[in-house]
């Protein structure tokens, strides 16, 4: 068990609920956002899927249009959330080497990967696009963050599907503990693409387009895909200054010998269950052992890195009791982060 004490000093979010902490807070008190509709290819023509789509238009509050030229939707989402998190946290270390950048993603910038494939798949290999190729690497978002935000510390991109958030947080905790950096711009990003929509339709058939997500109905497939980004500014907890939002003080990623090993009975948990039947039985086992559980995935949709929104929600709520943010993979791995006010 890793028991760091990490201060959350800034939060930036963009997703199906809107963008910014204030819109996330508003979404918590209002009816769930209504997903957009997107057209997908099917065996018999086309159909529609619901999608929690992220709008990055607020990015122009932070950057000139020319700076954003050539930057794809995936990196734009990350840039918006990261910029909001930095603004929210206020001034950081004067030395740009002292800030690390860590980005977790389930699938990476696949829309740009497919654009790159488009460039040569029919026209021939000589027509491959260098611009699309350069932006299709997984660390493109982290690279744009370091370039445009002028951060020269270490950078890391992690892609561990459902365990991406907790896996990456473990390394964030190590870097802060070692004193490698004084602050980490830590975030997640995942995007929707037509290929994801098509695959969704093929894999879930008639269940691909539910009326609404029912994430605590663990035997049903009610997932609606989401996209977006969520960033935090993290620093080591200090006695001299209180965190703006909250502290993370327990991070686990892997297979516990028992749920009780990491999650005390009677704890309050936010589960990242997102309507996927393949993870349902693992969440069901956890929820059975708890008396107080919430689930907010209908605010942001089904995505591998959705757990980060739960951490943001836990930090915003500032509850007296610790809040355990829990994610399960379809093989039974558990990703857990506890968030405390003090």
């Amino acid at each position, binding site marked *: 068990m890793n028991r760091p004490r990490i201060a959350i000093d800034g939060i930036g979010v963009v997703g199906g609920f809107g963008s910014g902490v204030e819109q996330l807070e508003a979404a918590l008190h209002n009816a769930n956002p209504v997903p957009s509709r997107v057209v997908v290819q099917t065996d018999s023509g086309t159909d529609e899927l619901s999608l929690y789509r992220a709008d990055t238009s607020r990015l122009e509050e932070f950057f000139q249009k020319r700076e954003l030229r050539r930057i794809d939707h995936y990196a734009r989402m990350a840039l918006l959330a990261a910029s909001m998190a930095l603004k929210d946290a206020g001034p950081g270390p004067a030395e740009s080497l002292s800030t690390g950048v860590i980005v977790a993603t389930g699938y990476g910038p696949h829309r740009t990967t497919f654009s790159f494939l488009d460039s040569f798949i029919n026209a021939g290999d000589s027509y*491959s696009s260098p611009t699309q190729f*350069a932006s299709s690497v*997984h660390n493109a978002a982290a690279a744009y963050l*370091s370039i445009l935000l002028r951060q020269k510390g270490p950078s890391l991109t992690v892609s561990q*599907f459902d365990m991406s958030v907790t896996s990456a947080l473990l390394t964030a905790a190590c870097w802060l503990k070692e004193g490698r950096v004084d602050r980490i711009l830590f975030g997640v990003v995942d995007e929707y693409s037509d290929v994801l929509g098509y695959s969704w339709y093929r894999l879930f058939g008639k269940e691909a387009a539910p009326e609404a997500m029912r994430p605590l109905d663990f035997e049903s497939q009610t997932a609606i895909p989401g996209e977006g980004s969520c960033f935090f500014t993290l620093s080591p907890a200090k006695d001299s200054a209180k965190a703006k939002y909250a502290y993370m003080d327990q991070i686990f990623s892997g297979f516990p*010998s028992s749920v009780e090993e990491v999650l005390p009975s009677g704890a309050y948990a936010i589960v990242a269950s997102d309507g996927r039947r393949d993870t349902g039985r693992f969440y069901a086992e956890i929820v059975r052992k708890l008396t107080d559980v919430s689930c907010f995935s209908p605010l942001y949709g089904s995505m591998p890195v959705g757990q980060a929104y739960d951490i943001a929600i836990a930090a915003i709520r500032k509850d007296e009791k610790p809040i355990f943010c829990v994610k399960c993979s379809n093989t039974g791995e558990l990703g857990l982060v506890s968030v405390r006010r003090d």
Partner: protein
Amino acid sequence: MSDRSRVAITGLGCICSLGQGVKQCGEALFQKRRLPAVPALFKSSLPIPYPVFEVKASLPDTSPGAKFGLTRTSALALVAADEALRDAGLLPYDPTLRLRIGVIVGTTIGSMFNNLTFYKGFANGRHPEPTPVLRFLSNNPAALIARRYGFSGPCQTIGNACASGTDAIGIGASWISSNLCDIVVAGGADELSRVTYNGFTSLMVTDDQPCRPFDRERKGLNLGEGAAFLILQPVGSKKEGMPRIKGYIAGYGAACDAYHLTAPSPEGLGLRNAIGQALAVSGRSPNSISFINAHGTGTQDNDKMESKVLHDLLPGVPFLSTKGFTGHTLGAAGAIEAVLTVVSLWEKRIPPSPGFVLPDPDLPAIPAREAQKVSGGVALSESIAFGGHNSVIVVEAP
């Protein structure tokens, strides 16, 4: 880095165009074997064939851990991880021991869904079966290795482009020194693919001849493929069965240029910072370094910048680029180069930097022309990636 955070290497595994297994790769390294050839794994319609370094060994094609079949990257990873785990005496592994074994894998292709057959079918409206999607989802390299052996610790697949393998080892050392894990399986894996072949060719950074890192006539890189893993454990571990120590990871540094998506900062600011950090963490001075396994891709910009940085920070220290033997194996490169660095420390010698013949007047430092003995027992291995990310590890002989 204090003694507390110096991390022992207890097992090594490697597969690349030099051969299968650390012993074979090490022997081929000092025999100066280099066999680039036109790609056989895929067809290309490019008018000029660019040589690559393919793995010729037969690879496993089934695994109980991959219901939908193994990707080539996963197969390479399993071969190298298996060798490293056996070398460390960890196989067969008894999951009831509940050791905290983490797995960290650097890769580029291994974390991207870019199946060409599937995508072409989709793009042309032919409604392909989603099996390749399921194969991708069941082939996350770190999770696959953990599942294969029943490891229950954390997994991390790193997508830091060409520095991924070095970062996997550096972060693995952090996981050990932070007491997050008892053992970490750290390395990298990447397959050759038409996608990356086209990508690097489109950037005009591939050489149509065998690559010539740091040479005046260099025209770019040759792609390669492979995998390598290191087993990392705490120094002085009291766990039963602690095997012979093969070397140490004594330091890790990483920093960004914050300059350009594909071009390195001309002054190598990120690399300077990464080297400085790695040396500071290890408590080693530049004059204690025996040699450097440079990134040395053979591209104009990389080699010029790297030569300048080595000249300024580590003057007179011999260096080479083993990419002339293996090709640029992308996410696996840092891990393969770490293994070759350990082997060279064992041998107390380095081979000549392959492909280097003519000094470039623009490069203030030149690599080893001849095989040479090296004194001391500390080396650096460097990686430089897309996005301006630089990472460096300090490797020590046992």
